[in-house]
């Protein structure tokens, strides 16, 4: 079933920047994990969710997997441009204990 999810990524040295668009569900979450796995040696992932307004808990479980993968290499995940509802969701799910957040990609890359 089509899920209206797209992503684009850019590599800045060992930092991968992913911009998502659409529903982050099982399919969307898997695509994010796969995109990270494509780039070996990455130790920082900046995930821009400006165009994703809905994330379900299966999508969140994939994001936790991303955090754990980055932890293995002493890396870090930073979320940017979060919708207030998603930010609240991530806070409740405890994601910010292991991941950072920033207002923009630029500030996340600093």
């Amino acid at each position, binding site marked *: *079933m*089509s*899920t*209206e*999810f797209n992503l684009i990524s850019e590599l800045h040295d060992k930092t991968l920047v992913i911009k998502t668009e*659409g*529903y982050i*569900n*099982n399919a969307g979450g898997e695509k994010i994990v796969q995109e990270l796995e494509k780039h070996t040696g990455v130790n920082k992932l900046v995930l821009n969710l400006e165009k994703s*307004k*809905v*994330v*379900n*808990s*299966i999508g969140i*479980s994939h994001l*936790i997997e991303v955090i*754990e*993968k980055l*932890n*293995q290499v002493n890396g870090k995940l930073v979320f940017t441009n979060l919708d207030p*509802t998603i930010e*609240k*969701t991530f806070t*409740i*799910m*405890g994601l910010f204990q292991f991941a950072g957040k920033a207002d923009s990609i630029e500030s996340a890359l600093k």
Partner: protein
Amino acid sequence: MENNSLVEKLTLQSESFQEGFETLCKSFSFDEMAKNFLHLLRGNFISTKIHLLYKATKDSNWNNIHSQEKFSDADLALLSLNNPVTIKYISGEKYNAVVVLPLADSSYLGILIGGKLDGSVLNDFDKITLQILLQIFDSAHKSFINQKNEKKLIFELNEKVLQLNNLIDTGIELSRYENQNILFDLALGRIVILTNASSALIKISDVDTNSTENQITFPTNISPESILNSEHKIESCFDFNNKTYQLVLSEKETRKGTTSFNDLDAMLLQAVSRQVRASLENEYLLGQSLEKERIEKELNLAADIQQKIIPKELPKIEGYQLAGINFPSREVGGDYYDCIDLGGGKFALIMADVAGKGISAALLVNTLNAALYSYLEFNLPLTELADRLNKLIYKASPPDKYITFFAAVLDSNSGKLDVINAGHNPALLLRKDGTLEQIEAGGIGLGMLDLGIPYTGQTLIINSGDKLFLYTDGIPEAMNSAEEEYSEERMIDFFKAKSGQVPEAFIKSIVEDVKKHAGQAEQSDDITSLILRRI
């Protein structure tokens, strides 16, 4: 080997075992843990011919872990589940030791240990070391499983908190929106989060014809048909304002694919569905309230306009008694009466009723009033006055609006009464001897048609003791709760019966009689009357 020597060597190794345990515990996955354990085994036994195999369940096959080694059926046959945990030591074979270790999650770890690099066989120290390493792996694996379960429990707990929080937020946010499209988008976005649905639909159809009026999906690129035809779906429906709203959820997601929705999902869908209905009702009631407020404002304005042109005080006419009343209904009508002093002992008595109610009726009365004052200054014959007013009202009003109009010009000195009746209820002239005359001469209501049909006037003489009774249809057509009219007959009978009353007293008593007839029924039209009596 001497026991003392063994103890000494094991004591020296204890720190290494501790480090090994910590390394295993830090493993991110079972795969990584197995890889670390393999390193531990190979390091301790100085052998590259050590292989790990994994069996997820009792009935599944053995799978290689971190090894390209091809195992024969004979090799695999060594990994018997008959005596798990037993270490089988074999001499002179490909493998010196074989272990099947049952794990905490009902899976199995198989270990095949071949020859050491120096060609020696496993000695007592190696055998004790193997026992210790197996215990270390078992403990580390249990810790790994506990951590995994703990993470799962924390995730599920957080998920429940999130669900509760989302449900509360959904209720608050849905109640805020007045725009239906935003409301539906928000409801769909929220319900897919609450239930982990892949997609959702709101279908709106006509209750009577069942024809679809609108379909909103989440995500937006999914066709409504694919949601309605999906394998796993739940739905909730409600009817409101002659429309059926059908909320459908499709394919509950898990990490392993999609599954059917559970009872909690159905309850959450019902909750969101009720909230959507409440928001639609609120929106509807707000609209109704604003419309009511608008109508009330219009009615107040209409009442103000009407009351400004109704005379507060009637002129005194020498030798006559005059009284008038306008008792407005709740829904402002377009009744109008007046007595205008024309000078020289002449007075114009006016009674009019605009078809329709509200501000448009009040404005038309206002137009009539202004035109009337203007034309009366020119001392026009009533027929010409009526003709001019007809043309004016015809142009100034919409097709469904017209005015029934009665005018009389009284010469108070002679008692001469020139009258014209443009479609109004007949005026009643009750002679002193009890004879009743109904004055109908005139023509069509003002503004009805402009075909040049001339109005016909009438001239009468009002003598001492005669009474002229002008009224609007609010009196004969006043209804009680059984929808029975007060009637023209009853009004005429009352007029005759109370002929002895002075005009002011008569007006009071006829209004009381009308109200008595109406009882609890709401007054549907203005009650307006003007009585002239020659003393």
